[in-house]
């Protein structure tokens, strides 16, 4: 009767660890989906944010993007992904979810990267310029190293959001860990439902912890990490 016992039994069942519907495959699918989405968002957002941050232009857009991003309902993004993927003939599952995740990941990366570069002490940049460093050298040797913890913070936020929303991919017939939850809900199999929720929660928390550690480790010696 207790749900904890049921969930424990579900995890103990070897059948749930094997084959294309098993836990390892679902975890890999989740990581693949999330990893690729964050990577694409990085490629799009970081160069733009570095340029804007270094030149000090477009601050208003870069900052407000984060607020706009928050107002986008994640379920609507999945719908949007579907609306893009179907006409392109990319089918269900992976690509509709991907189209939802990338726009979700861009705002926090963009905003944090912009702020990270802008917040580097202007006197330090001025001194570097005065000593004859090229603009690209200022960016590469001063602004990025000093701003890295904050940039990684933004990437971490994006990654956690992406891991969370990738779960919703299951409602457009995607794989990943959301499958257990959506199937558990549809079939009223609460052991599968809660087990899936545990796996997703664990993955999200691990992502958060990993990026927090990374941000801390990336602080140049002599600087304390901003939380």
């Amino acid at each position, binding site marked *: 009767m207790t749900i904890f016992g049921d969930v424990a039994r579900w995890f103990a069942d070897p059948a749930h660890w094997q084959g294309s519907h098993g836990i390892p495959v679902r975890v890999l699918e989740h990581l693949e989906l999330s990893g690729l989405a964050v990577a694409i968002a990085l490629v799009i957002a970081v160069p733009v944010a570095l340029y804007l941050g270094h030149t000090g232009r477009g601050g208003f857009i870069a900052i407000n993007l984060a607020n706009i991003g928050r107002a986008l*309902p*994640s379920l*609507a993004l999945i719908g949007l992904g579907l609306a893009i993927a179907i006409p392109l003939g990319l089918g269900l599952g992976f690509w509709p979810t991907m189209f939802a995740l990338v726009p979700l990941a861009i705002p926090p990366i963009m905003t944090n990267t912009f702020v990270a570069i802008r917040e580097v002490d202007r006197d330090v940049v001025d001194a570097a310029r005065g000593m004859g460093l090229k603009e690209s050298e200022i960016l590469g040797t001063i602004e990025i190293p000093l701003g890295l913890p904050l940039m990684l913070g933004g990437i971490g936020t994006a990654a956690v959001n992406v891991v969370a929303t990738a779960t919703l991919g299951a409602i457009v017939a995607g794989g990943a860990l959301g499958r257990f*939850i959506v199937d558990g809900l549809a079939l009223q199999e609460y052991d599968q439902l809660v087990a899936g*929720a545990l796996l*997703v*929660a664990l993955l999200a928390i691990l992502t958060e912890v990993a990026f927090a550690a990374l941000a801390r480790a990336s602080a140049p010696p002599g600087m304390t990490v901003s939380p």
Partner: protein
Amino acid sequence: MTPGEPLIRWDWIASHAGEISLRIGEHLELTVIAVVVGLVIAFGLAFVALRLPALSAPITGTAGILYTIPSLALFAFLVPHTGLSVLTAEIGLVSYTLLILIRNIISGIRGVPSDVRDAALGMGYTPQQILWRIELPLALAVIFAGIRVATITTIGLVTVTALIGQGGLGYFILLGIQLFFSTPLLVGALGSITFAVVADGALVLVQRALTPWTRLR
């Protein structure tokens, strides 16, 4: 999404006007309850954290974990206990408001200049009077910033509760996905975004009315 189908079928919207307004009401209700209950709990926990600094880290840490757990997973944890109900939806939605609200209440109150607090104490305010007449009013701007973020986030998350039988405008999004039908999808998505923008604007106006001293010169 079906070839030959227009992006928006106005006749569908017209024939579903009643249901749409019903769902808007539901969306509003879910959001307001979540933010109000979230505020009450957040104030309680923030005061505890301010009074007992040793508990500050555990409180914000727990709220942080709740915030990190994906919404669907959190709802999934609750369903076996509270079913596909409004209660399940609200417990989840409230959990997501806590981190932002607690953090802003604490930093708002800690941000009150120490000379102001010192002067109040020196003139004979009791600690209670300092909290209610000095610290809270002065923290209002920061607290409101938290309420705005919490509200916008909640409005977006309400759509996810469609998966547990609630959802407000999220119901139409899910319907659109299941039927491959773009009209309800757009009604749900654009409706939710519009709602968020309007709510944010309204909160800004309320904040301005409550804190006239913050917009001088």
